[in-house]
Structures are given as structure tokens and as C-alpha cells.
């Protein structure tokens, strides 16, 4: 099964990558953009998707500083 995991910086923790992108966009003429956050997309083929949460907790994300969301396409 193909699975996707989205990893985001936890809310409330300064995300300097998001800030940098947010500041760069108006310079290119893209106005009206706010609250930019930069995270990671992890795609993988997996036999047993029930193991994904444990995988996220142990390696794919650091739960102290990141939130993760498991997306399993049909």
C-alpha cells in the first residue's frame, strides 16, 4: 500500500523556513499570503499500515517539535 505522511512544525514553535518563504513571496509580486509553514512529505510503500503511527513516533517525526498526519490514499 502506498502511504503518505505529512510532517509539520508544531504550532507555536518559530518556523524560520515558513517566515523566509512568507517574506520572499511579496518580493516576487505574490501579495496576500500569510501563515506559511514548511514541513515534509514522506511517501512509502508499506505492507502493514497499522505500524505507521509507531514509525512516525520513533523516526519519521520528532513529536516534541513536529506534528504528523498519516494519509493513506485509497
Amino acid at each position, binding site marked *: 500500500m502506498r502511504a503518505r505522511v505529512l510532517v509539520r512544525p508544531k504550532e507555536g514553535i*518559530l518556523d*524560520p523556513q515558513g517566515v523566509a518563504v512568507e517574506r520572499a513571496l511579496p518580493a516576487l509580486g505574490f501579495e496576500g499570503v500569510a501563515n506559511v509553514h514548511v514541513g515534509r512529505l514522506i511517501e512509502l510503500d508499506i505492507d502493514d499500515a497499522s505500524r505507521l503511527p509507531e514509525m512516525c513516533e520513533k523516526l519519521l517525526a520528532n513529536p516534541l517539535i513536529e506534528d504528523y498526519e498519516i494519509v493513506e490514499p485509497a
Partner: protein
Amino acid sequence: MRFGVVRFPGSCDEVDAVHACERVPGASAQLLWHRDPDLHGVEAVVVPGGFSYGDYLRVGAIARFSPVMESVIRFSRGGGLVLGICNGFQVLCEAGLLPGALLPNDHLRFRCRQVELEGVEAGTSFTGELTAGERISVPVKHTSGRYYAPPEQLESMHAQGQVVLRYAPGHNPNGSLEDIAGVRNEAGNVLGLMPHPEHAADPLSGSDDGLRIFTSIAHAHA
């Protein structure tokens, strides 16, 4: 006193760390290869700086699972002294041996410069040679050194005296919470810091203040 210095693929400060350990009177040091789980009877372990396993995924995230780290984790649980510098600090946080995490610098730039540190907790196994509030001069060089711990964790760290080193006022190079530069675990046998005492262990490098971290370890062990 026998120091062991871990070498991962991507480590780059292990040779300076060996040199710093060897400058401690009566001490010797050897490298510990990442695939070898045998710590060869060393009495303290240094996890050095660099870019272990390319820093893929997150800094320190992959190195934590290497065979040598499994042994270092067991060694630390038995009370063994472990010092993590820069990338080594990131690895120890990822391994759960130290509280908190290291985030990208608030300005997103690689920062390489000499900084002043204040000893917050003197008399630990890593700062026995410092007096409280004393300043030492050592370099930093990193992109992900912004220390973070959730508020409730930070509170408990303060209560246990786990914040050991701070950047002196005006010297915080990365946006670290409360200017935190180095923390220890609750038991007090594991210390991680972003600045590089091993690069300030010889008067030739402009400061040998960092050597006192290594001599403190040797004295704590004796």
C-alpha cells in the same frame, strides 16, 4: 582515564575531540566506529560534531539507531559519562538521553564564530573545573542549534539544575530558548552542548577554555 570518541559517516570533529581528550593529563582516547557495538572498555564517551548520516530526515535522527549508539545508550544508563557536542548533542536529544530538541537557527544561516558561555551549573561532572557564573570562550559552528524544550519540561529542568551552560548576554548565535547552550540529563552523567570545547583545547586555537570541560570529566571519573 580512557575516552572513546564516536565516528559516524559524516562526523567531522572527531579528530579534534580525540586531541582534546589526549591533552587531559593522564588521559588517552580512541575512536569508536559507528558499526561496532563494542565500546572497548572506554570510561567516557564523546559524541562529536559533524553531519552524521548526512543529517537526513532531521539532524541526529538516523545516527541514533547506529550499533554504537545502542551501546552508548546502555553505557549512559549504567551511569557512564557521555558528552555530546553539536551534532552529538542533536543525536543525544534524538536518542532521548537529553531533554529537548535542536531546531534550525532562527535566522536560517550557518553561524561560525567565537562565543562566550556562562557556567550556570558549576560542579557538575562536566563543569567541575568552572566556577558558577564564570565565562569561557569557545567557538560555535552550526545551522541547527536553536535549543527548544516545552515549557513544562523546561520548568522541571530548572528545578533539577539541568541547564548547565548559557550563551553570555549578546552571544546567543541561534535564537536558543533562554540562551541555553548546554543541558544535562536528570542523573547528571550526560551533557550536550552546541559550542565546541574540543576546538578550544589548545592555546594555538586562540582559547583553551574548552579543555576544562574535558579535564572536569576526567576528575569526575577519578
